[in-house]
């Protein structure tokens, strides 16, 4: 062996190892030098990835020892793979190339003739192998460093990209473009989980890989297993896929997938996978940030909106508190619902619950009648730009306008029994309804209750079609109006003119407002009841005063009456005696007669007064009104026969009895008939009718007394039963008040049919005793 040429070989090896030529060139030159030196037939550098598993080369690599092929080797044929056999030339050397950390392959020298390696040759080859290992190791380090550097740059780039924006859409784009640049991928897809549905939704994609049928399946799998997936395909027809979950802490936001490396072969390696996981994590953090930011800002928006709603509510409530007038509160409420700055609906209608009748009664409505009117109102409002409080204050001073809608709604009454009707359901179920009617008939919901309700033409109830009108099918909503713990009515709203859709949120706001308004209405109702009670109390008080007056009068009159009666007896009595003594032709005859008449009058007045003011207890028993009337007529008949008065009596047969005080009733009818007699001034017809009557399932008996007098002056009509009432030309006296008092104490009803100038008919109705009583009585 030539030592100088061996030296030359090593020198050139050293030179090449530090040369700046590309590695492949250097290795080629080194192999060439080695081959030249040893005169080998083959000289190869085998990389580890060229070694086949289970082959003897692999074993050799694990052992790390050189193999000298010198004649019979005793190698087991079965352990040698067919492609390895060609290496087993008659003479060969196989030297593992070992770096500091790893195995870089073999240096192979093959000879067609068998040969032996001298110890110098072996040393030289081992030295060469060592040097080659070193070269490969340093090359490996260099590549590693380069790769690390490029990865760091990539991550930095991703980092810069993801922090550059909080806008989610931009962020997704940045991640995908930067990611595919780093991974040298031809395309990619970014998916984010929709929180509401749990579905993975494509937010951004590059290169149309989202059309790949496998794509979604892989993304789902990665999302649910939270494990990255690497799927390499060699060849053009199928894409290599690298997919990682977007994990941040415990949260998984979605998946990030890249396709087809631009390199050949187009495959991803573990380092790519790791890089993607890092990228995915970074991305997830950014998405989390962006989502948090997004959430925060949408919360802030929500808060702002709420704050505005609350201030609106506050303004409206303040307005509602300005009055306790029921009508005005309703008008304020409905107007607030329709004001643009208020709740902003086009029209608002109110139906109040009528608990007695079990119906919903249309009470009031506010809203323009035509689209033109709506336009005018909106224009006027937008020009004025008044704050809500000002508008409301203005409203509270104006009176409700008589719109067509208002009168339409006022005419509607919906029985609650019609459970099909949305309005009834709103009351019965106590919740709001948002009815979105399609514009065409085919899509209508069958809410028709079967009743002839006028709403059908206005509100898209299918009844409208049945009635043959042309209904405007449109959306409307109903909200229950709550009083204290119960529904007191229904508010119906719509956006007929601008066709804005009504949202759940609108309705929640309306519900909030209507709850407040409900309380105000409840208060107004209570106030109204209070006023009614107050009015009643006032009436009772005046009644009481009247009563007190009466009893005071009673006491006074009883004392005075008795004191006056005695002297009257004397005056009247002696006047009578004088009258008898005085001859008929003497003027004194007339004087004494006047004294007699006037004394009689005073005595009558005293008698009436005492009767009226005295609360005589009723002695009740079953009585026949016919008997009472007959006896009364007989008491007074001499007066009728004196004048020219005809009495016509019409009594029905089978008259029921009544329960009453015989004497007092006689007294009452005496006064009534006497009154008629006075009215007729001695001439006319007095008709007396008596007949039974059935009303609302109860039995009554009715007395009608008709005279042909002058009638009652309409001015005095309402005062005829007032004991203190008198006019200059008519002294009504106490006859009718006593009559009234006795009849009403018998639960009798008095009606007066007054025909001024023609006469008066008094109609008196008493509750009849039941038939069973009559039988009892007749049996006795």
């Amino acid at each position, binding site marked *: 062996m030539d030592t100088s040429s061996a030296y030359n070989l090593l020198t050139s090896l050293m030179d090449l190892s530090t040369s700046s030529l590309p590695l492949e060139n250097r290795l080629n030159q080194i192999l060439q030098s080695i081959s030249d030196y040893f005169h080998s037939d083959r000289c190869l550098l085998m990389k580890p990835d060229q070694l086949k598993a289970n082959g003897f080369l692999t074993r050799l690599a694990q052992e790390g020892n050189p193999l000298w092929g010198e004649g019979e080797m005793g190698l087991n044929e079965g352990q040698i793979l067919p492609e390895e056999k060609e290496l087993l030339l008659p003479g060969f050397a196989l030297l593992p190339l070992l770096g500091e950390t790893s195995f870089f392959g073999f240096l192979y020298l093959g000879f067609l003739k068998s040969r032996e390696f001298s110890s110098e040759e072996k040393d030289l080859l081992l030295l060469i192998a060592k040097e080659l290992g070193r070269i490969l190791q340093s090359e490996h380090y260099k590549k590693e460093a380069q790769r690390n550097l490029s990865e760091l740059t990539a991550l930095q780039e991703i980092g810069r990209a993801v922090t550059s924006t909080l806008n989610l859409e931009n962020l997704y784009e940045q991640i995908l473009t930067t990611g595919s640049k780093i991974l040298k991928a031809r395309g990619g897809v970014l998916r984010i989980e929709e929180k509401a549905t749990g579905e993975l939704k494509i937010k951004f994609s590059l290169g149309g890989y989202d059309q790949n049928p496998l794509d979604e399946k892989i993304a789902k799998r990665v999302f649910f297993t939270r494990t990255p997936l690497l799927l390499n395909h060699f060849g053009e027809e199928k894409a290599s896929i690298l997919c990682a979950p977007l994990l941040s802490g415990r949260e998984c936001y979605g998946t990030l997938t890249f396709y087809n490396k631009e390199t050949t072969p187009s495959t991803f390696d573990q380092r790519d996978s790791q890089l993607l996981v890092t990228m995915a994590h970074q991305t997830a953090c950014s998405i989390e940030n962006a989502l948090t930011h997004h959430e925060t800002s949408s919360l802030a928006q929500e808060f702002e909106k709420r704050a505005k709603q609350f201030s609106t509510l506050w303004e409206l409530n303040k307005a509602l508190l300005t009055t306790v007038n029921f009508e005005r509160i309703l008008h304020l409420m409905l107007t607030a619902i329709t004001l643009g700055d208020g709740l902003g609906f086009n029209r608002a209608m109110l139906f109040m619950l009528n608990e007695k009748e079990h119906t919903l009664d249309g009470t009031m409505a506010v809203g323009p009648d035509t689209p033109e009117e709506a336009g005018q109102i909106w224009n006027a409002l937008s020009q004025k730009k008044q704050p809500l409080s000002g508008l409301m204050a203005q409203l509270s001073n104006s009176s409700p306008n008589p719109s067509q809608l208002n009168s339409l709604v006022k005419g509607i009454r919906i029985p609650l029994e019609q459970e099909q009707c949305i309005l009834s359901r709103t009351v019965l179920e106590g919740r709001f309804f948002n009815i979105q009617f399609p514009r065409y008939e085919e899509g209508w919901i069958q809410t028709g209750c079967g009743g002839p309700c006028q709403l059908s033409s206005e509100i898209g109830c299918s009844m409208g079609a049945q009635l043959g009108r042309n209904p405007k099918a449109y959306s409307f909503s109903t909200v229950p109006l709550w009083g204290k713990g119960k529904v007191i009515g229904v508010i119906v709203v719509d956006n007929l003119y601008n066709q804005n859709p009504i949202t759940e949120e609108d309705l929640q706001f309306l519900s909030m407002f209507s709850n407040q308004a409900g309380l105000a209405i409840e208060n107004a109702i209570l106030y109204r009841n209070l006023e009614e009670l107050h009015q009643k109390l006032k009436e009772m008080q005046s009644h009481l005063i009247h009563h007190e007056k009466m009893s005071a009068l009673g006491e006074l009159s*009883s004392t005075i009456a008795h004191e006056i009666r005695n002297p009257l*007896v*004397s005056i009247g009595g002696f006047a009578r005696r004088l009258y008898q003594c005085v001859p008929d032709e003497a003027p004194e005859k007339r004087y004494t007669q006047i004294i007699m008449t006037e004394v*009689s009058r005073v005595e009558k007045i005293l008698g009436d007064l005492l*009767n009226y003011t005295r609360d005589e207890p009723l002695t009740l028993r079953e009585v026949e009104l016919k008997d009472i009337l007959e006896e009364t007529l007989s008491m007074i008949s001499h007066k009728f026969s004196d004048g020219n008065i005809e009495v016509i009596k019409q009594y029905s047969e089978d008259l029921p009895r009544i329960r009453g005080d015989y004497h007092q009733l006689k007294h009452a009818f005496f006064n009534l008939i006497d009154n008629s007699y006075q009215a007729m001034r001695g001439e006319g017809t007095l008709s007396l009718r008596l007949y039974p009557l059935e009303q609302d399932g109860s039995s009554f008996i009715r007395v009608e007394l008709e005279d042909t007098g002058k009638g009652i002056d309409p001015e005095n009509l309402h005062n005829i039963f007032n004991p203190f009432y008198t006019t200059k030309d008519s002294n009504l006296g106490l006859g009718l008040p006593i009559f009234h008092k006795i009849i009403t104490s018998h639960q009798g009803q008095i009606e007066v049919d007054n025909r001024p100038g023609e006469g008066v008919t008094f109609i008196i109705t008493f509750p009849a005793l039941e038939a069973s009583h009559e039988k009892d009585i007749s049996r006795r």
Partner: protein
Amino acid sequence: MKKILVVDDEESIRFLYKEELEEEGFIVELAQNGKEALDKLSYFKPDLITLDIKMPVMDGIEALKRIREMERHLPVVLCSAYGEYKQDLTTWASDAYIVKCADLTELKMTIRRLLGIL
């Protein structure tokens, strides 16, 4: 001739009743109050008494009680300005109750009825 004792505290009324009843053909004796009436009862022995209620010394109610103790069946006509006792007193002890009135027709008719003169 039937005898009537008229009891009344008012002189003018006593006078009127006396004049009227004597004209009707009765013998009339007068008393100013219940006490005087009781005194005159024993010697005058009336067939009927007209008795006022409100009187000094002894009122008509008290007098009526005493009379009933002595003369169970003597007809007594209460004559009063007070109408309100009518129902109670007729059923209780007197034979008739008349609310005083300038027209004495009712009184005269009642007296005749009670004395059986028709």
